[in-house]
C-alpha cells in the first residue's frame, strides 16, 4: 500500500508531546546576553536624544545601543520582503507601489507606538528590562495619522514627506464593460464593509538567538521564522558578510500564520549585536511587543456594489477598497492584489472593476495573515451577495447556486490576472457542487423552518453561507535533495521550514510513495540554510504543491539511480527491477535481490566504488509551478444570537473543501479546522483597536481575543478531491483555505439572525457590543429584531 492518502501519525509528535521540542527560546546559548528593546511610546515623534547614562549604571548592563551607535549599519536598507510586481503584471496592470525600507532602530523619527528605538543588552532579561525602563528618550511629538481616512485627506500630515502623499499602493483591475453592465442591470446594491485590523498571534511570539563563532567569525542565527533563507539573504546584505558564513535555522516554530514570513528589524539587530559584542545574544518577544510591533493585517474598507437582474443573474461587480497599511505594506502588493483578484471567488461575474489603495498611517506595518487578502475578498463579496439576495427577495442559497460556477464550466477565466501576471483561470473544482453539498449536510431547509419557528419563541437563529477559492502553490520554484544512506535510511532536505504543518510527515509520505521505503525510515530536514541553501519560505499554502512535487521529482530520480546501481550489481536490466521490503528485487525472480543498505554502501563515496549511478545514491529534484492551482470550498453555519448579551453561539458548522489529492487526511483536517477557527476569530472576536493618538488599546490577550475551545463547535468536514492538473502529484495547498470564508460567514449569519435589525451591521468582528448596539437602535426605531422569514 502506498503512503500517500493515509492519515499517518506524525513523526514530529513524540518530541513535541514530551516537552522535547526545540523552539527558539529553548536553543542552548551558553553565556548569552539578553536584550530588552526600548520601544517608542509615541505613534509619531521626532527623537531628539537618548540618555542611557542611568541605564548603563545598573547591574548587569553591557550596552545600550541606539541608531546613532550603529551608524550606517542601522540602515535604512531596502525592505527584505518588499519586491516589485512581477514583470507581466507590471506590464499589464502597472500597479503603483512604493519601495519600503527598514531600519534596525528608529533613527530621527519613530513612526508607530512600539517601534524599536534602543536595545539594552544585559546579562539576563530581568536586568535588561530594568535598564530599559531607565533609558530616557527625548521625544518631540508629531501629528499622528491615526486612520486610513485621515491619511488620504487632502491636508493630511505626511508619514514620508518625500512621497508627497500617504499612498503606498494603488491599482485598478477589471474585466468587461462594467459600467454598461451597471446601466443595463435591473438593480444595483451597495454596501460599505469594514474588516477590522487583525494580527496572526502564533502562540509562540517571535525570537532570535545569534551566536558568533569566536574563531572563524561565522555566525549562527536561530529565528522563529517562516523565511530563514530570506533572513540569511537579508543578513548578508545588512551585515555585509558572505551568506555562506551565516547559518540561519528556523527550529521548531510555534506557529506562524504569515506573521513570521517577514524579516523584522529585530532579526537584523540581534545578529548585529552578537557580532559587535562577540557574544551570543538573545531576544525573545513578549506578547505586548508582538501585538504592537509584529505585522498587522486585514484592515480594509470596501465600497462594493453589485449589479443584478431580477432573475438573480449577476451582471457586474464594482469595488473600491482602502487598506490601512500602517507604516508600510512591507510585502508590497501581495495582500492588496490577492484581495482584488480573489474578489469574484468562483461566481459567474462577467464584468468587474476593482480599485485598491493602501494608505500609510502611524501603526505597525502590514502584511499577510493566513489567507493573505482572500478572507477580506470573501468577506466583501459574500456580504454583498447577501444584500443582493435580500434586495431581490430571493433565497440566499438559491441566489448563490444560480451564480456559482459548475465543474463543467472549468477551466474558467475571470478575465483578470493573477498576481504572477498570468490569466486568472480556475483550474477545476466543483464550486457549485461544494455549495450544494454543504447546504445538504447543513440541512439548510430544516434550519430555515427552525429559524422561523425560533423567531416566534424569541430565539435569534441565523444562517451563514460563504465560499472560497484559493490560489495555492505560488512560484518561485523549489528543490529537494534526497539520498539513500548506507544505514538504509532516506534523508530528504528542503528549504522551507515548518510551523506545525507536519511536513516532516507529509514530505516523507511522498518520498515513501515513490521509493517504496517506509515512512519511518525517511527523515526530512528543513528550515536550515546549512542543510539546504535555498528556499522561498513556508507561505501562501505553497509547500505541499511546490516542495511536495520537488520531493516527488527527487524521489523518482533517486529510484532510477537505485535501480541502475542495483542493475550493475545484479546484472539485471533496471527496468526489470523493483524496490520492495528494503531490497531491490528482480521482478518475477525474488531470489535475485540486493538489500538497499548493501547497495548504498557499495556505491557511497568514501566506502564504495563509483558506478554508473555516479557519486552516491543521491538526487536532486525541482518543481516549477506554471502558476497557482485553485482550491475551492464552501462553509455553512448556524448561529444563535443572545439578544441581551450579544453573544454568538455557533450551533453547527459545515465545511466542504477541495484541495485536490490528499497526502495525509488527518493533517488536512487539522489545517481546515484550524483555519476556520482563525476565520471565526476574524468574524467574531479579533480586533486591534487604536485611539486617535495612535496608541494600541488591545495590547494583551485579555483585550485581543482569539477563539477559545468554548467559542467553537466541532465542525463537520467533507473532503473532496478534484486533482490539480497543474502538478504531477495533483495536489492543491490547504494551509489557508479554512480561514477564507470565516469573517463573511459570521457577519452573514449574525445579520441573518437579526433580520431587519441587522441591516446596519457591516463590520467584522461582529462583536457583542456591535450586536447589542444594533438591537438597541432597532428597538428604539421600532424595527423588529429577528429574521424576517
Amino acid at each position, binding site marked *: 500500500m502506498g503512503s500517500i492518502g493515509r492519515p499517518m501519525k506524525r513523526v514530529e509528535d513524540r518530541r513535541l508531546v514530551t516537552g522535547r521540542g526545540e523552539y527558539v527560546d529553548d536553543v542552548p546559548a551558553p553565556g548569552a546576553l539578553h536584550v530588552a528593546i526600548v520601544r517608542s511610546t509615541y505613534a509619531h515623534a521626532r527623537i531628539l536624544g537618548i540618555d542611557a547614562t542611568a541605564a548603563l549604571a545598573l547591574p548587569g548592563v553591557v550596552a545600550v545601543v541606539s541608531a546613532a551607535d550603529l551608524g550606517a549599519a542601522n540602515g535604512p536598507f531596502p525592505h527584505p520582503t518588499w519586491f516589485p510586481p512581477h514583470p507581466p503584471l507590471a506590464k499589464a496592470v502597472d500597479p503603483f507601489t512604493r519601495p519600503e525600507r527598514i531600519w534596525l532602530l528608529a533613527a530621527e523619527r519613530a513612526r508607530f507606538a512600539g517601534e524599536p528605538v534602543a536595545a539594552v543588552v544585559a546579562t539576563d532579561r530581568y536586568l535588561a528590562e530594568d535598564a530599559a525602563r531607565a533609558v530616557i528618550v527625548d521625544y518631540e511629538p508629531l501629528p499622528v495619522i491615526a486612520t486610513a481616512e485621515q491619511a488620504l485627506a487632502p491636508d493630511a500630515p505626511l508619514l514620508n514627506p518625500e512621497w508627497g502623499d500617504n499612498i503606498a499602493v494603488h491599482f485598478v483591475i477589471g474585466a468587461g464593460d462594467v459600467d454598461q453592465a451597471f446601466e443595463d442591470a435591473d438593480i444595483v446594491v451597495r454596501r460599505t464593509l469594514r474588516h477590522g485590523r487583525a494580527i496572526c498571534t502564533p*502562540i509562540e511570539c517571535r525570537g532570535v538567538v545569534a551566536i558568533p563563532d569566536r574563531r572563524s567569525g561565522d555566525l549562527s542565527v536561530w529565528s522563529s521564522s517562516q523565511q530563514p533563507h530570506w533572513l540569511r539573504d537579508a543578513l548578508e546584505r545588512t551585515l555585509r558578510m558572505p551568506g555562506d558564513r551565516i547559518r540561519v535555522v528556523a527550529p521548531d516554530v510555534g506557529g506562524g500564520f504569515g506573521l513570521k514570513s517577514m524579516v523584522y528589524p529585530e532579526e537584523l539587530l540581534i545578529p548585529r549585536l552578537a557580532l559587535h559584542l562577540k557574544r551570543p545574544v538573545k531576544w525573545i518577544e513578549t*506578547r505586548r511587543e508582538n501585538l504592537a510591533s509584529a505585522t498587522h493585517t486585514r484592515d480594509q474598507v470596501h465600497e462594493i456594489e453589485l449589479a443584478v437582474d431580477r432573475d438573480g443573474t449577476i451582471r457586474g461587480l464594482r469595488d473600491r477598497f482602502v487598506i490601512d497599511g500602517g507604516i508600510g505594506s512591507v510585502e508590497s502588493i501581495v495582500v492588496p492584489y490577492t484581495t482584488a483578484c480573489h474578489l469574484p471567488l468562483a461566481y459567474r461575474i462577467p464584468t468587474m472593476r476593482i480599485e485598491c489603495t493602501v494608505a500609510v498611517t502611524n501603526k505597525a506595518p502590514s502584511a499577510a495573515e493566513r489567507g493573505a487578502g482572500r478572507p477580506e475578498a470573501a468577506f466583501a463579496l459574500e456580504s454583498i451577495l447577501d444584500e443582493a439576495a435580500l434586495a431581490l427577495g430571493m433565497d440566499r442559497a438559491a441566489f448563490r447556486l444560480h451564480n456559482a460556477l459548475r465543474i463543467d464550466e472549468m477551466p474558467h477565466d475571470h478575465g483578470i490576472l493573477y498576481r504572477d501576471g498570468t490569466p486568472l483561470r480556475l483550474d477545476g473544482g466543483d464550486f457549485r457542487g461544494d455549495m450544494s453539498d454543504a447546504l445538504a449536510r447543513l440541512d439548510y431547509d430544516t434550519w430555515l423552518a427552525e429559524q422561523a419557528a425560533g423567531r416566534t419563541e424569541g430565539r435569534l437563529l441565523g444562517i451563514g453561507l460563504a465560499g472560497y477559492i484559493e490560489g495555492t502553490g505560488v512560484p518561485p520554484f523549489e528543490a529537494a535533495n534526497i539520498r539513500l544512506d548506507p544505514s538504509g535510511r532516506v534523508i530528504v532536505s528542503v528549504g522551507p521550514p515548518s510551523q506545525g504543518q507536519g511536513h516532516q510527515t507529509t514530505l516523507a509520505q511522498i518520498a515513501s510513495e515513490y521509493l517504496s521505503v517506509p515512512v519511518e525510515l525517511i527523515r526530512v530536514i528543513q528550515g536550515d540554510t546549512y542543510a539546504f541553501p535555498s528556499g522561498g519560505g513556508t507561505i501562501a499554502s505553497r509547500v505541499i504543491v511546490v516542495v511536495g512535487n520537488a520531493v516527488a521529482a527527487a524521489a523518482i530520480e533517486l529510484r532510477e539511480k537505485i535501480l541502475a546501481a542495483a542493475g550493475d550489481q545484479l546484472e539485471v536490466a533496471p527496468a526489470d527491477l523493483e524496490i520492495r521490503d528494503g531490497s531491490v528485487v528482480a521482478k518475477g525472480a525474488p531470489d535475485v535481490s540486493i538489500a538497499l543498505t548493501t547497495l548504498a554502501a557499495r556505491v557511497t563515496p568514501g566506502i564504495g566504488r563509483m558506478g554508473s549511478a555516479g557519486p552516491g545514491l543521491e538526487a536532486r529534484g525541482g518543481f516549477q509551478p506554471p502558476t497557482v492551482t485553485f482550491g475551492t470550498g464552501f462553509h455553512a453555519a448556524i448561529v444563535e444570537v443572545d439578544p441581551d448579551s450579544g453573544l454568538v453561539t455557533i450551533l453547527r458548522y459545515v465545511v466542504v473543501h477541495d484541495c485536490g489529492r490528499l497526502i495525509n487526511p488527518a493533517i488536512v483536517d487539522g489545517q481546515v479546522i484550524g483555519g476556520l477557527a*482563525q476565520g471565526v476569530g476574524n468574524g467574531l472576536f479579533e480586533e486591534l483597536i487604536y485611539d486617535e493618538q495612535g496608541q494600541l488599546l488591545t495590547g494583551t490577550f485579555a483585550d485581543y481575543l482569539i477563539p477559545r475551545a468554548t467559542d467553537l463547535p466541532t465542525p463537520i468536514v467533507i473532503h473532496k478531491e478534484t486533482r490539480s492538473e497543474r502538478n504531477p502529484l495533483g495536489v492543491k495547498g490547504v494551509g489557508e483555505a479554512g480561514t477564507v470564508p470565516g469573517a463573511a460567514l459570521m457577519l452573514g449569519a449574525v445579520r441573518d439572525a437579526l433580520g431587519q435589525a441587522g441591516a446596519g451591521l457591516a463590520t467584522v468582528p461582529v462583536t457583542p457590543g456591535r450586536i447589542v448596539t444594533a438591537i438597541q437602535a432597532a428597538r428604539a426605531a421600532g424595527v423588529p429584531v429577528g429574521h424576517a422569514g
Partner: protein
Amino acid sequence: MSEHAIRVRVNGEDHTETVESRLLLVHFLREVLGLTGTHIGCDTTSCGACTINLDGRAVKSCTLFAVQADGHDIRTIEGLEDGDVLHPLQEGFREQHGLQCGYCTPGMIMAALPLLESNADPDEATIRTAISGNLCRCTGYAQIVTSIQWAAAALRGEVVATDADADPVWQPAAGPPGY
C-alpha cells in the same frame, strides 16, 4: 532584590535553590531547572502555554513566583512519561492529531491531566471548559478534544495506541558496510 532559598519537588525530584524574589515560576522551571517543555505565550495568564500542575491542580506558571512554589509539588510535561512509555494523554495527542506546532501542547496536556484524574469520561462540553484557559492557534481545538477523549478511553482500558505508521523505529543496519 532579596533572595530566598526554596525547596520544590518537581516531577518527583526535590530541588533546593536560591532564587530572587521576583523570579517567575516559569523561568525557574525553564532556566534554573532546564525544563523547557513549559512554554510562555502571553505573560498575562491568558494563553495557558505555561500550565503546570501544582499539588495536582492546573496552574499557570507565568503568574506565580518561584518562591510561592516553596514546599509544593510540581509536575511538568517532562514528568508524564513512564520510562519510554508515553502517558495516555501524550499518546492521545499523537493518535488524534491533537497538535500542530506543538507550542501550546504541554500546557494543554497539563490542563487536561487534572480533569481526567477527577473525571473518567468527560463529555465534549466538559473538556472544552477544562481547556478554555488554554489558547491554541493551530488546531481549532476539535482534534484536541478528541485527543483528550482518546486518553480518557485509554485510561479506562478501552483503546490502545496503534503503533507503526510514521513512528521512527530505526535500527542501525547490521552487517559490514562497503565492498
